[in-house]
């Protein structure tokens, strides 16, 4: 069987993006299960020693395409290079971050290779499949698992016939884990001059304003998340007050983001970030599956909701029946009273 590939993104600070390291960690596990190698693709500018950042995650081979015009990312040069590598190496599986870059690049690659691609997977595992129509047995297919359709169902998607089996995964869904600080793989330099042509550079970047991410809810131990039930942007201030006292970060459901109560960067769930804090306080969140997909691994969950039957209460350790406008000020008050 052929190897597993992860496309690694380079951040504004010129390091490998967290989401890519998370995918390498997952890729390592999948590769070991199949007894194949884990390979990484890194494309950018001034990539000297970049391999040192990724070998510890258990990477066996890294393909490095280093050329002056490859950072910042643009679609055509990156897809030309990835396609060239894939055509030679014929990956069994290829995983991309579900980021601005990954979601621009992966579909283009999948279309060129005519293979299947599943967006925003929340879980990847192996399983078998028997195709009744052709009476064919498939072993160790990649089960690409994602919530679908209004979140009422969880779908398992497979690509029996086409290779690579492609998937995108959001930041935070997989866990970043160093395998062995001394792990050493091989570096393969990509001959970019042989691949890149002028026509790949027709889209020119003329201006960029990038900011380092302001909020980092992913690494916070305590998260206060607000939903549509918070009611307004003003009421969201209550959540910030509680977060200040508890040293927490504020997150939001998609309905709260759509209503303009909170910024998109704070969205938690299938199409936001995935978090695993010690404590998750869900304020006025009903608990749709797409939301739970991003927070149900929290160690403890408190739900504050006016509705006893809100689905979120079923996964909460504590359910407070009441309005957030009433409950949150009291939480602040009694936290202060009880913490020395």
């Amino acid at each position, binding site marked *: 069987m052929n190897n597993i590939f992860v496309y690694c993104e380079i951040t504004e600070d010129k390091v490998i993006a967290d989401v890519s390291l998370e995918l390498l960690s997952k890729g390592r596990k999948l590769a070991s299960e199949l007894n194949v190698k884990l390979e990484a693709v890194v494309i950018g500018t001034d990539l000297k020693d970049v391999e040192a950042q990724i070998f510890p995650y258990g990477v066996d081979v890294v393909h490095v395409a280093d050329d002056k015009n490859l950072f*910042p990312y643009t679609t055509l040069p990156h897809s030309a290079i990835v396609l060239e590598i894939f055509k030679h190496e014929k990956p069994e599986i290829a995983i991309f971050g579900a980021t601005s870059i990954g979601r621009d690049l992966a579909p283009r690659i999948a279309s060129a290779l005519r293979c299947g691609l599943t967006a925003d997977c929340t879980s990847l595992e192996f399983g078998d499949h028997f195709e009744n129509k052709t009476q064919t047995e498939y072993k160790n297919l990649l089960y690409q698992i994602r919530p679908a359709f209004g979140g009422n169902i969880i779908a398992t998607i497979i690509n029996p016939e086409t290779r690579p089996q492609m998937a995108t995964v959001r930041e935070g869904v997989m866990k970043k884990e160093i395998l062995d600080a001394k792990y050493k793989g091989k570096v393969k330099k990509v001959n970019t001059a042989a691949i890149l042509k002028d026509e790949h550079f027709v889209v020119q970047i003329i201006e960029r304003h990038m900011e380092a991410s302001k909020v980092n809810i992913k690494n916070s131990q305590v998260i206060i998340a607000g939903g549509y039930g918070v009611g307004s942007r003003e009421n969201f201030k209550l959540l910030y007050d509680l977060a200040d006292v508890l040293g927490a970060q504020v997150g939001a459901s998609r309905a709260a983001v759509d209503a303009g109560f909170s910024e998109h960067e704070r969205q938690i769930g299938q199409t936001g970030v995935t978090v695993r804090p010690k404590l998750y306080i869900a304020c006025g969140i009903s608990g749709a599956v797409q939301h739970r997909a991003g927070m149900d691994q929290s160690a403890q969950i408190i739900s504050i909701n006016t509705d006893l039957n809100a689905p979120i209460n079923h996964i909460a350790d504590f359910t*407070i029946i009441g309005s957030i406008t009433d409950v949150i000020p009291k939480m602040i008050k009694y*936290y202060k*009273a009880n913490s020395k």
Partner: protein
Amino acid sequence: MSFRIIVLAKQVPDTRNVGKDAMKADGTVNRAALPAIFNPEDLNALELALRIKDQRKDCEVIVLTMGPFRAAEIVREAMYRGADRGYLITDRKFAGSDTLATSYAISLAVKKLEPYNLVISGRQAIDGDTAQVGPQTAEKLNIPQVTYAEDIPEVTDTHIVIKRRLELGIETVKAPMPLAITVHSSAPDCRQRVAKLLMKYKHARTVTELQNETKDYTELYNQRPYLQIDEWTVDDLHADVEMLGLSGSPTKVKKIENVVFAHKDSKVMTSSDEDINNLMKELIESHVIG
């Protein structure tokens, strides 16, 4: 030479307002219970196209939608807001298409409309949030793509300047045409229907819809060519059936599961001072906070 923009728009179930009756007892989705709407980001895409039309006399905006017969509503809705005409790609043989098969069919329809300057789609459709059809259509057409557009500050005969909304900021790019663009929800909202256009196009019909109309209506329809919404089938597109529907879709749904709650024994409490005081004490004592 005219400036031709093709807008890709999809009719989607309104998954943002999934009610209790959206799921049938057997765990399948009850599509009938969900209103069908114009995919929100496709409205943003239409607006960016119409803004170019506002600036250029030679500009023509054509809507393309693929779906069942009732998706003709999308074409009419776009015409009420300023699109010049539209096509419905519809055929049973398209059923079960994944994004790869969908973009194949759409790309064939776009090719029939050559020469075009821009193919503008939404970033993603809310029924699946895959955001794949735009880039895949671009690849099939062998043209460059610019994703996540929020504004188009400049258009000339030879190039276009696009402001893109990325996770961590804004990027402005200059691109040649023909070009595929996908539009982000941060782009301007779509203008409302125009009363005059509503009056003009409310009787626009596809051939299939026409079958349910009276004879008088058919006469009117024949006198006014602008009322005809063209339907394109697999044959019209000269499509390879192997690349459509289930056979043309490499992704298969292996399994659909209802979401089962892993019930925890939740401790339920009120918002009384006493209950909240006790809870905060417990959290501090168990070192969850503090």
